[in-house]
């Protein structure tokens, strides 16, 4: 998840990438995304994998997939993820994500595990997080 200024707001790797390579990779990826206009499609071929991205206001959500993955499904998954965030934070903004990085991670982990989609039901995704919030209150 990267904003228009190219600052990473959330990153998750399902295969190990070295730290310094991560920053380079992220910078290049966002450069690729930013250079595209609205009338262009949301898939970019980047090196040996494909980037699927979606833009929400100033935030880009970019997912790197290999060629066997279904681009359209990932495209829809991104929206699903944002919908869940929207529900939890009630109208999510970039700041919500920044200040609650750990929570966003939990949501993401509930949805995607190991690079595979685990859960797409909104209430089931949020269940563990709500339990957690309750625990924190007490």
């Amino acid at each position, binding site marked *: 998840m990267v904003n228009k200024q190219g600052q990473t707001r959330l990153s998750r790797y399902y295969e190990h990438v070295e730290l310094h390579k991560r920053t380079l990779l992220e910078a290049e990826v966002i450069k690729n995304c930013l250079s595209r206009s609205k*009338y262009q499609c*949301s898939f970019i071929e980047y090196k040996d994998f494909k980037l699927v991205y979606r833009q929400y206001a100033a935030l880009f959500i970019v997912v790197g997939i290999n060629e066997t993955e279904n681009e359209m499904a990932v495209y829809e998954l991104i929206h699903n993820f944002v919908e869940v965030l929207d529900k939890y934070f009630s109208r999510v903004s970039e700041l919500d994500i920044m200040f609650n990085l750990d929570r966003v991670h939990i949501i993401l982990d509930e949805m995607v595990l190991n690079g595979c989609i685990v859960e797409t039901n909104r209430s089931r995704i949020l269940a563990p997080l709500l339990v957690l919030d309750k625990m924190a209150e007490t």
Partner: protein
Amino acid sequence: MALKMVKGSIDRMFDKNLQDLVRGIRNHKEDEAKYISQCIDEIKQELKQDNIAVKANAVCKLTYLQMLGYDISWAAFNIIEVMSASKFTFKRIGYLAASQCFHEGTDVIMLTTNQIRKDLSSPNQYDTGVALTGLSCFVTPDLARDLANDIMTLMSHTKPYIRKKAVLIMYKVFLKYPESLRPAFPRLKEKLEDPDPGVQSAAVNVICELARRNPKNYLSLAPLFFKLMTSSTNNWVLIKIIKLFGALTPLEPRLGKKLIEPLTNLIHSTSAMSLLYECVNTVIAVLISLSSGMPNHSASIQLCVQKLRILIEDSDQNLKYLGLLAMSKILKTHPKSVQSHKDLILQCLDDKDESIRLRALDLLYGMVSKKNLMEIVKKLMIHVDKAEGTTYRDELLTKIIDICSQSNYQYITNFEWYISILVELTRLEGTRHGHLIAAQMLDVAIRVKAIRKFAVSQMAMLLDNAHLIASNTQRNGICEVLYAAAWICGEFSEHLQEPNQTLEAMLRPKVTTLPGHIQAVYVQNMVKLYASILQQKEEAGEKESSQEITQLMIDRLPQFVQSADLEVQERASCILQLIKYIQKLQAKEVPVAEEVIALFAGELNPVAPKAQKKVPVPEGLDLDTWINEPPSDSESEDEKPKTIFHDEEQRHSRQRQPEMDEEELARRREVRKQEQANNPFYIKSSPSPQKRYQDTPGVEHIPVVQIDLSVPLKVPGMPMSDQYVKLEEERRHKQRLEKDKKKKKQKKEKKGKHHRHNSLHTESDEDIAPAQHVDIITEEMPENALPSDEDDKDPNDPYKALDIDLDKPLADSEKLPVQKHRNTENLKSPDTEAPLGEDLDFWLSPAPPPVSTTQTQSEPEVSTAIAEPEDHEEPNKEDREEEEDDEGKKSSKHKKKKHKKEKEEKSKDKKKSKKKHHHSEEEPVESVQNGTLDDEPLPPMSSYHLLAENPYIKMTYDIQGNLQNDSQVTVSVIFENKSTSFVKSMELNVLDSLNTKMIRPEGSSVHDGIPVPFQLPPGISNEAQFVFTLQSIVMAQKLKGTLSFIVKNDEGSTHEKLDFKLHFSCASYLITTPCYSDAFAKLLESGDLHMNSIKVDGISISFQHLLAKICFHHHFSVVERVDSCASMYSRSIQGHHVCLLVKKGENSVSVDGKCNESTLLSNLLDEMKETLSMC
């Protein structure tokens, strides 16, 4: 203590939390780095405190910093501390940090094993959950080995939340610790049918990922997945399953046939674009995998193409992109169906989005024909002019070249046009692909003899205008074309109009600014040019001008002698000396031209790009042995012998062939031709398959073809390819008119109507005759060239380790390591797998005709029903083994299975035969069950007979009549690779007889074999089907055939052949057709049947067994059975009824047959006699 706690929480109030950190960073935009390093110092302080809350907070902040790109690996130990916190809120922070920054190289990771195990078995499902999530990110081989068993236990946890996570983690565990796959697989399979859809989907995900890498091990799961696919409504799961099928179908074409229908249904019904896209993709994969013998899928292709068209026409760019992507997959196998959408794809070339344009370009490759090539390339050229980005322009350039040069310039009708296109492309600025254009120019000029004259004139023009090309920048890639231009002008200098002018151009001082390798070519070729000028002048007797030209060379060459490039320098100084010598001779008025030209005599033949690699190492030559013993290390360095090949100059890629004597050449050619004829990969050379070589050496052996040029050769200035388009149009128009005239005449003779239709020009490719009669010379290959060199698989592929046969029963040694203190809850040994391969075969075999009620079950049910007879099988097998081991002792186990034992005793006499057959191909017994009422177990029988066998391959075959077609039978051949090598490029061919013919794909001749649509890794077997047509079926037939294949192993690959005889017995024309007894009686009464009978003595097997044999091997079904007498029925593919009455006496069997074709009957009975006498 209490005080400390209070102090800790007070401290916390002053600590920054994550929010403060984020805010802080935002407020220090100018000195962010400084602020962060300050924060890291604070964090280090916090981590030193005992309070776990403080530590957790610190770790949380570190996670954020890590995301920004700061290394936090130094805090690994603290992260583990936080992971082991008892409070979930802290624990999860620890795991999050670990999952973000731990990896296989993190050394403290081994400290976590016990903590993770504790968390995994925690009563709190969220503790377990977070541990699983974390583990998925940083699992190492050690962790995987130690925890595999714990995670496997969790796969059967009561909470679906845990189950689904555990299932998904298993995939990572398999990757890191492949030994765990076999023990865990049965449970994983169980999860496919988990009541919770989430768990189900997780299992589908894992198996899909596994199967994508090693599909063949998962074929046996196909029936289960098929059931899931038809029952599931979850689109995410459906996508995965369909993707999985896409990976499986190439291995099992029959599966594809089964899939087509449900997939097309889904395509019709679904509204989810992602699912639609996946379905289309898999349908394409299915259609690719189906061999050409299976017709009637044009409907599905049409459907796919239509749906894709809708996607492409959609305003959503994403759909457009995907549509084009999928379209390009169809293009590979069904170019015709895509070609009809040419309009749409050309439209996409104008799209605003570059990715879409690129995809459309990919498609263009397959759309061109002789007819539209010029038009399409013209369009692309316009794009080249308009394109703003260099990457896109370069892409266009390569595509143009690809499109034009594909299949040996198959679509080019006018090479002058192509040369002009290439020349136009040189005007591109800043392209990286100058060498590509150059290579094309060289290739065309060398291989298309007829075009040389034109090419030379164009190249001379390029040389003349070299300043335009080379002027821009030093590193301009386009100047590579000068390399080609100089070479072509030099080599084919006899075609030059004004050689003097060209030589002048090559000697310009500006040339010295070109890259060294180009200058070198310049120098070499100016001598060739010089030689031919010299010859001309001498012939014309112009002594003065020949001396002038020599003087010119001597004047200008020194600029090259001074070159910084060694190659240029060397060549130039050699040549300078040579020319100085010539000058001396000229002064003495000695004619020299003949000798100078002799320096460059001989034709250069094109050499295939891989020719060098394919030269086989001669027998007895070992490249690794030392020619001289290597010097000992003690020798001083400068005395080291120079490597022998080092000093040889870098050879020019188009090396002059060493002259060989005539005989040798002829012999080699013969060998090569043979090779080419046998090599399926060899691309047949030219559109006009004229004699490629005549058996005379030297220049003459390339046939000189009369040039029939309809375009004037002298095109003033730079050529415009457009002219050719116009000219071509005219030319074609003329051709058409002529044809029309002819047709009109014919029509007039008939009636003279419909003459309008003819003017609607629907010309096909074949109608267009090429403008020049062109002979494309094939590239040369060394003799005995090895036919293929496929890239081997990457040996480091992590997925290779997961290529494990999952159907074999588990051995004790394979069980997962279990922690000792847990030994009490011993791991249940997973059930031994039933041999699923057979189920699969049964499941896949086309459903029997729905005549009897027992056979009208739906397919998934059938697959479960099959499990039953195997239950009979298993215990029997065990018992038998026990009996053999300890005859006297009756183990307790034995008693338990007493009832089974009794049953077994009944069939004691069959035990032996059963044992014999145990390892042979087992065919499900159900196929003969329709007449057997006893539950007496039948011995397994195989309808597959040995076809042929050699040390590499074993072929067994079975012939089945085709229900739909009365003159076709399908021969299923199982190919088994018995060797340790890889077997590929199998091709099966038979010698057709008048009566029996193999159906070959359209357009192939009767001598062409049919490629087997798979390859065989060592020890693998697979089945392919071939369809044959028959005219008469009353007699048995034999066809001779050959299987040719390539065996590839470490030593290399060899071509092998295996001859066989395919025996079509009369029984193979029969189709098991059930018949009711009343219908049977009517048939016998009708009286138009011929009769025949046989009697066989010495039958010892039971009647039941005997009937089964007849049913199975001769495709009969039992109509009625009374005691030791039975009536049987079958029908041939051409509709002959065959009725049998089988009676068993003491030791003999008599068979009375009735059939409406007497020859067929007597042949059938003969065959039956043979079978029975073997009993």
